[in-house]
């Protein structure tokens, strides 16, 4: 068993930035005896502590495993580059925060896969842990390396590195998986046999049991290598949010993290069906937490944490039925406790503004809205059903109510988009500026952030290519030039090259894995952080691995084509996806009644 001694640890911590991210020992962190529990897992988050500790999923899983007395879950986050240097210099292995024990001493390492640009960090963490990157090269006594989270819905680019993926919501099934692992280990099954056994579980995908088949370089199917493994894998969903485990005493970080507040999830899933939105599809069906349960959780959380902010999270908060009643009940329950409640993910309409207004009373910071596209036509294509009238009346109301800051999110590169649609973003902002004559940039701050569309698996746009990099760059220039004529508006855009990579991994197949390894060998890390991201290194990796990323990023899949994630099912039938995809293009100039029946 490896543990790092205190003196050396102090010496290292005195030489790195934000040492508080490596010390552990936070309030509510577990302190269990490693040797007496029967299953030990590390939850590995492939980004910095400040990002990982803001993730609610991590806290839920931590609770779900640690609430069992015979199981242990500890945490590890990606090491910042200075800390990585220190560990490598001293020949120390990646260690957990709780017991400062080597990650490879555990039974399972579970990676939280939240975004594609953290993949090089995953490889780096495996390497720092002293494990072989490839599943096939790891020994029986090595920990199982598993992954879950949104990116597991197309895990193929990571397939050779992982022993197993959990597809879907794991909070109820993870302890069961660990139990089965313990039983298999007691039977002294080989690693391979253990994996075959586990593969029978719902939502479990063991990539080594499936071989992709290619014809003329194109994926044409998957062969199941062991008859005990299922032909296709269905995602896991928890049936009832009220009964699901929920962290009422989460770990409270000492140091500042991105989101540091009490969180209660109102409902999971979103039925609005915006065609680009992966979260909207993979978290279906919509499941609500009851008002009584929400109030109960909120009270317990505030008691156990001392937080002064409560965030009511969901994908589209204003869709929670009787939300005003809920807010009333929360007000009553938390009266006099100096807790401010926030509702993220608001729609751009007057109803949402009224809600925000009611919550914030005196404190008016800024409101965030995501119209995504600036023309009504394009919003119809992507199924973001708001009108320009909605936008203006929401802003009117908000400004009248005293809000002073607005953030608007748009996307470029959407299917059917033209230069005119992009110029319309600038034009819309110009009209907003004119409407609130002279106040934008002075009394009222307006910031506009423009991302690039990335086609994601299991969405109606999964067949669509990404806009070519040159074109994206040209459209970003259009925007920059346009916003130059609108002083006072703060304009930001996402790095187009980073979105290009994101698309490569979002729609790549198993062939992409070797590129990933190459890029990691060349030193790519923290690709989601602009200060670390180097597209030049990635281009070198493209050349050296011989992989042509354009063939993945710009490929338009046909309905009959085999998709890399085709054997993973997420609930929505493929006929629906095809129909919805077609509809996007049929209806592009039509004004139709919106289908609101599916909403919560």
């Amino acid at each position, binding site marked *: 068993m490896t543990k790092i001694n205190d003196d050396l640890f102090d*010496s290292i*911590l*005195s*030489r790195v930035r934000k*040492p*508080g991210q490596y*010390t*552990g*020992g*936070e*309030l509510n962190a577990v302190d269990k005896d490693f040797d007496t529990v029967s299953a030990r897992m590390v939850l590995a988050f492939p980004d910095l502590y400040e990002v990982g500790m803001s993730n609610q999923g991590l806290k839920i899983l931590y609770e779900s495993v640690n609430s069992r007395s015979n199981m242990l879950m500890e945490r590890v986050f990606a090491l910042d580059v200075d800390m990585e240097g220190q560990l490598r210099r001293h020949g120390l292995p990646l260690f957990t925060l709780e017991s400062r024990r080597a990650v490879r001493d555990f039974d399972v390492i579970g990676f939280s896969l939240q975004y594609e640009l953290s993949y090089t960090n995953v490889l780096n963490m495996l390497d720092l842990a002293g494990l072989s990157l490839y599943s096939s090269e790891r020994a029986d006594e090595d920990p199982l390396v598993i992954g879950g989270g949104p990116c597991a819905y197309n895990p193929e680019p990571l397939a050779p590195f992982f022993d197993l993926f959990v597809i879907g919501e794991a909070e109820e099934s993870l302890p069961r998986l660990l139990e089965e692992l313990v039983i298999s280990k007691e039977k002294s099954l080989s690693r391979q046999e253990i994996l075959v056994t586990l593969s029978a579980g719902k939502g479990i995908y063991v990539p080594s049991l499936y071989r992709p088949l290619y014809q003329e370089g194109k994926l044409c199917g998957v062969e199941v290598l062991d008859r005990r493994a299922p032909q296709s894998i269905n995602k896991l969903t928890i049936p009832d949010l009220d009964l699901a485990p929920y962290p009422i005493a989460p770990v*409270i970080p*000492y*140091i*500042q993290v991105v989101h540091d507040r009490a969180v209660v999830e109102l409902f999971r899933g979103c039925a609005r069906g915006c065609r680009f939105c992966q979260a909207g599809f993979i978290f279906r069906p919509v499941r609500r937490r009851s008002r009584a349960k929400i109030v109960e959780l909120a009270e317990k959380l*505030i*008691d*156990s*944490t*001392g*937080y*002064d902010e409560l965030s009511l999270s969901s994908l589209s908060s204003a869709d929670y039925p009787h939300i005003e009643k809920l807010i009333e009940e929360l007000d009553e329950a938390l009266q006099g*406790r*100096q807790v401010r409640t926030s509702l993220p993910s608001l729609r751009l309409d007057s109803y949402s503004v009224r809600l925000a207004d009611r919550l914030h009373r*005196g*404190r*008016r910071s800024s409101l965030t809205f995501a119209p995504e596209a600036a023309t009504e036509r394009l919003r119809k294509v992507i199924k973001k059903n708001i009108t320009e009238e909605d936008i203006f009346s929401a802003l009117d109301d908000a400004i009248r109510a005293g809000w002073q800051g607005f953030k608007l999110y748009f996307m470029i590169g959407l299917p059917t988009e033209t230069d005119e649609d992009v110029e319309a973003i600038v034009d819309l902002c110009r009209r907003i500026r004119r409407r609130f004559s002279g106040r934008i940039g002075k009394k009222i701050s307006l910031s506009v952030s423009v991302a690039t569309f990335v086609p994601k698996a299991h969405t109606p746009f999964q067949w669509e290519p990404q806009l070519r990099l040159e074109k994206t760059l040209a459209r970003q220039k259009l925007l920059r030039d346009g916003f130059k004529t609108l002083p006072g508006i703060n304009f930001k855009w996402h790095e187009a090259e980073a979105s290009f990579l994101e698309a490569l991994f979002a729609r790549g197949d198993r062939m992409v894995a070797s590129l990933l390894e190459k890029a990691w060998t060349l030193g790519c890390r923290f690709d989601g952080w602009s200060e670390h991201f180097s597209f030049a290194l990635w281009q070198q990796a493209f050349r050296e691995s011989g992989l042509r990323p354009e063939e993945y990023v710009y490929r338009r899949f046909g309905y009959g084509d085999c998709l890399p994630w085709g054997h993973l099912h997420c609930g929505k039938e493929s006929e629906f996806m095809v129909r919805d995809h077609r509809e996007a293009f049929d209806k592009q100039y039509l004004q139709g009644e919106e289908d609101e029946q599916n909403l919560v």
Partner: protein
Amino acid sequence: MNKIWFSFARHDRLRYISHLDMLRLFIRAMRRERFPVAYSQGFNPHPRFSLALPLPLGVTADEELGEISFSEVVDAEQFAGRLAAQMPVGLEITGATCVDENRLPLPSLVEAASYRAGIINEGPENISSLHLEQVLNELLSKDEIKILKRGKKKKEKEINIRSHIMALSAADKTDYPTVAMLLRAGGGGGVSPLIVLEKIITGTGINEPKNIRWDLHRERLYTSADEKLETLSEGMCKING
């Protein structure tokens, strides 16, 4: 309203958190205990809580002070006990006392702080205690010790820190050479112990300063009473009578 001063010590891994982290930690602990913390008025109410002097990241301490106002009367002894129960390993509540509400805010009373800094040399070069004493005496004999300070608009400005250094001496601790320092601090002006230590290391002429790290510890906070320095905690006891 009622106001309480409390004292605490910080050790171990809690040294790795910042001043703002400390503020958050205390406030959350008090909120968990449901103390009737008083909040400021206005759009963005803040708890009326402050620490006497920010404790730099990486530094341990014996006797720090905090000040908190409550909207209802809270018994100081009970307060200390309940707050202590909420503290993580590495933070210790050592006392508490009620003070007059109209007393000047605690941070404005701080005038000086004393430190002990163990020099841990992880390189091959040697710094003897004798040599260290020479370096300290040399520094003390100067009229001017200049450092570059980044002022407003990112302009660098040269300032003289000599008058902020009240005392320096070498003390032998068993495992490594140690410097004792008394430095001016607080609103009236002062200097960070880390800057003084940097000057000392430069003075030793050592070739690889990156091999040096500090075991830096703050011992006492001082205020002045009758033209003399007295520790803030003495002040706290006096109130207690």
